[in-house]
C-alpha cells in the first residue's frame, strides 16, 4: 500500500508543476496584455489631444522653415 502511494506521489509531481507553470505563464501574459492595452489607451487619448493642440504650431513652424 505504502509503495503504491509513493508511486502515485512521484507520478503526480510533474503534472502539478506543469499546471503551476502554465497558470503563472497565463498570469504573466495577462499582465503584459493589460500593461500594453492601458498604454495604448493613454497614448491614444493624450496623443490625439496633443496632436490637435500642437497642429497649428507644427504647421506654421514647417511653413517658416520652408520659406
Amino acid at each position, binding site marked *: 500500500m505504502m509503495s503504491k502511494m509513493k508511486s502515485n506521489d512521484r507520478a503526480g509531481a510533474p503534472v502539478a508543476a506543469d499546471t503551476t507553470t502554465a497558470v503563472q505563464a497565463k498570469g504573466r501574459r495577462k499582465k503584459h496584455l493589460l500593461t*500594453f492595452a492601458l498604454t495604448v*489607451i493613454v497614448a491614444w487619448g493624450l496623443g490625439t489631444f496633443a496632436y*490637435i*493642440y500642437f497642429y*497649428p504650431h507644427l504647421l*506654421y513652424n514647417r511653413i517658416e522653415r520652408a520659406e
Partner: protein
Amino acid sequence: VRRRTTITDVVQGIIVGGVLAFFTANLIINAEIKAMQTTVNGWSITLKCGQLGSGILLRAACAKDIPAANLPEEAVYWTATVDGAGHTLNGQHDYVLHFPPGGLPPNDAFWSLTMGDAQRRMVANPIDRYNVGDRSGLVPNADGSIDIYIQNTAPTSHESNWLPAPTGDFMLWLRVYQPGAVILSGEYHVPPVVEGK
C-alpha cells in the same frame, strides 16, 4: 526569443497609441473643417477662423484648411472642388462662372479667383495666368454681367476672361479682401460654376 518586459509593453503601447492618435486626430480635424463650413452652390466658406479665443479644435481645423487665415473683416475665402451640380471640377470639361450685373463680390479692397490643382498647387499654363480678379481686365458682357471661362484650352474670343485649368481635377479659391457687409452677414452667395455646353 526575446522575453517580454514591462518596458517593451509600454514602448509598443506608445507606438500603437501614437499611430492611432495620428489618424484619430486627423479624422476629428477633418470633421471639424466640414462642420465649420457653409456650402452654397458648391462654394464653401467659413467665417470662424482667425479669431483669438477659438477652441483648440477650431484652431487646428482653420490651420489645416486655411493656413494663416485673416479675420473675416480682413478677408474671406471660398473654396470649390465641385461645380453647381455637385460634380468634381475637372479640366476635361469647360466651365463658366457667371456673375450677374452687380453680382460681383462686394468689397472695399479687391477680389481674386485663383486656380489650384488637386494638390492645391498653382497650375502652369501658356499665358502665365494663375488668377483673375477685379484688376485683371475682365471684359463684361453687354448687360454688365461677367463670365469667367474656366477651362484647359483658351475660349475662342474670350481669352481676357479665361482662367486656365489643368487637365485633371482642380479647385478654385475666391478671396475677397475687406468684404462687404452682405458677405459678413452670410447673405451674399457666390454663383455656381456651371459646366459649359
